[in-house]
């Protein structure tokens, strides 16, 4: 037991400089018998953008989705470790995942507006939370924050699915921020978008971090350097027979990209493997 424990690489914990909103300590994440991620400590800092990078299958999406218990939708998913959010482990027995997701919102890889009007899409979360105030005002505010208001203000009654891909993604962001959640998780939010829409979403993220805490998975290293304050690099370990992802290094984005501590990080950054 000890011999394997010594052989396994475990990243040095990243010492966050500011407030930590979500303190995620993964021991093991399983899908059935398959060990997907091991030994990764990922603190998410307040009012910053934390970027997750790494090759395919390294578990970065799995870790991100563990932060608001989205993976609970998969029946064979099992999480060992803890995710402390305001002093409470979100994986504690008494915590309902539904409540976690109301405070920690999510934007997905594929734009996924509901098949209802643009207005109803944004108002969805407000109605869900039985918001008593001025729904119309909140919808406008969310759409303005998502840099979509000018494009849709005259067609709020049209279906959300009638918009273009980039607009749909910004609509999903508006839907997520309408209820002003504490944290916003983004799972490769730009991978289905063209460069112009990508740029709009990136600018939007930089504005959003004034009010929200963001964590984002990206396949695009340039994107990480452009928007992320802190970067976590994951890799995949095939030595144990499976394909187990783990955290290699986490630090300020500039340090990760200019002066990585680990050889593996250096190789990945320079494009020597992916």
């Amino acid at each position, binding site marked *: 037991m000890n011999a394997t424990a010594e052989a396994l690489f475990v990243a040095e914990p990243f010492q966050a400089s500011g407030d930590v909103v979500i303190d995620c300590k993964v021991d093991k994440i399983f899908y059935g018998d398959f060990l997907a991620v091991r030994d990764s400590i990922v603190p998410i800092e307040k009012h910053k953008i934390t970027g997750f990078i790494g090759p395919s299958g390294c578990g970065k999406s799995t870790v991100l989705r563990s932060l608001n218990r989205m993976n609970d*939708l998969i029946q064979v998913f099992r999480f060992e470790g803890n995710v402390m959010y305001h002093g409470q482990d979100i994986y504690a027995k008494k915590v309902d995942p*539904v*409540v976690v997701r109301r405070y920690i919102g999510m934007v997905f890889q594929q734009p*996924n507006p*509901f098949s209802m*009007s643009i207005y109803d899409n944004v108002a969805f979360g407000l109605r869900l939370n039985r918001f008593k105030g001025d729904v119309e005002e909140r919808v406008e505010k969310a759409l303005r924050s998502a840099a979509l208001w000018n494009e849709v203000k005259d067609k709020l009654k049209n279906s959300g699915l009638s918009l273009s891909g980039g607009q749909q993604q910004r609509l999903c962001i508006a839907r997520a921020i309408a209820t002003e959640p504490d944290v916003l998780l983004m799972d490769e939010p730009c991978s289905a978008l063209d460069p112009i829409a990508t740029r709009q979403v990136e600018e939007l993220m930089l504005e959003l971090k004034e009010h929200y805490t963001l964590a984002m998975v990206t396949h695009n290293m340039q994107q990480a350097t452009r928007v992320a304050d802190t970067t976590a690099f994951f890799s995949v370990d095939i030595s144990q027979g499976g394909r187990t992802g783990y955290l290699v290094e986490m630090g300020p984005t500039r340090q990760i990209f200019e002066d990585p501590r680990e050889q593996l990080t250096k190789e990945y950054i320079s494009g020597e493997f992916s």
Partner: protein
Amino acid sequence: MNPRQPPGIRPRLVAAGLGTERHRQPFPHSQENAMANPFPHAQSASPISGPPSALEYASDRIFRAIALSAASVIIILTAYILWEVAGKAMPAIGDYGLGFITGTEWDVNKGTFGVLPEIWGTLYSSLLALLLGGVFGIAIAIFLTQDFINHRLATIFRTLIEMLAAIPSVVFGLWGIYVLIPLLKPGAEWLHDEFGWIPLFGSDLSGPGMAPAALVLAIMILPTVAAISVDALRRIPYKVKEAAYGMGTTRWEAILKVMLPTASSGLLAALVLGFGRALGETMALAMLIGNANQISLSLFSPANTLASLLASNFPEAGQVEVHALMYAAMVLLAITFLVNVLGLGIQQYTLRKFEGKK
């Protein structure tokens, strides 16, 4: 042989059984091809790419011809049936006019024919069946698709429900007579005694009647509604489910506020098809509805439907009555047609409204 062809390709082609006559020459069929190859000089890389053969072009045309004739047969057949029925109904249409639709009496001896009670019975029984079968069918579809039970169990369940559709309607009729009506009787009696002032329970169930007929009809349309609803709910992409739960919905909120609206056009199609089936159902209704020429709101009164009128009266109908029955058949056809057009209209509307499709 082409000089630019890689030397290794020939043995590999032969090994794969491709080094046959056709592949040895670049374009063996170019002479007899219907379409001449427009790129005769584009053979430099390898002889693997080439135009389809004459046989392939021919089978393409044959397949198109078969598909076209199959489609036209359906249209011609429908038109022919309509023509025949309309032709036979013509004398009655001329004799009775619109009074046929508003008339409430069907008496061969007096020569008066009216189908208002049958129109009422058809719509009333079908609506009741749609209400019951629709609610249960969609509920079953939700149960089978929204992770309430595991996938294998759901498949078994679904097969069982689809087997309901394989039961002949005469068996449903017999079951209704020997099982359902005796079963309903005590409850109907009690309802009539206690709540007789409500028009729905305004009469007693003396045997066949609207309630057993509508119940059996509901069971009969259940497989149709359930199967199509299951497909509609299964078609919802996983990302929509993720979006719903990602917003922090509970399971019921996700189903009611996201899944059902997303599947609405498919669910509507299920209901329209179920309703269509209920309108046209004949045998079980002829056995269960009581064939009484009356209009009543009461669930326990006997009534009649257009299809069961046709089935029960045809065997002994004389020349005059046959014409009247054909007219009744035209009315039934018109109702089903209207229902389908209406359903299609609503479906188009929801597609436009919810999914932004033009």
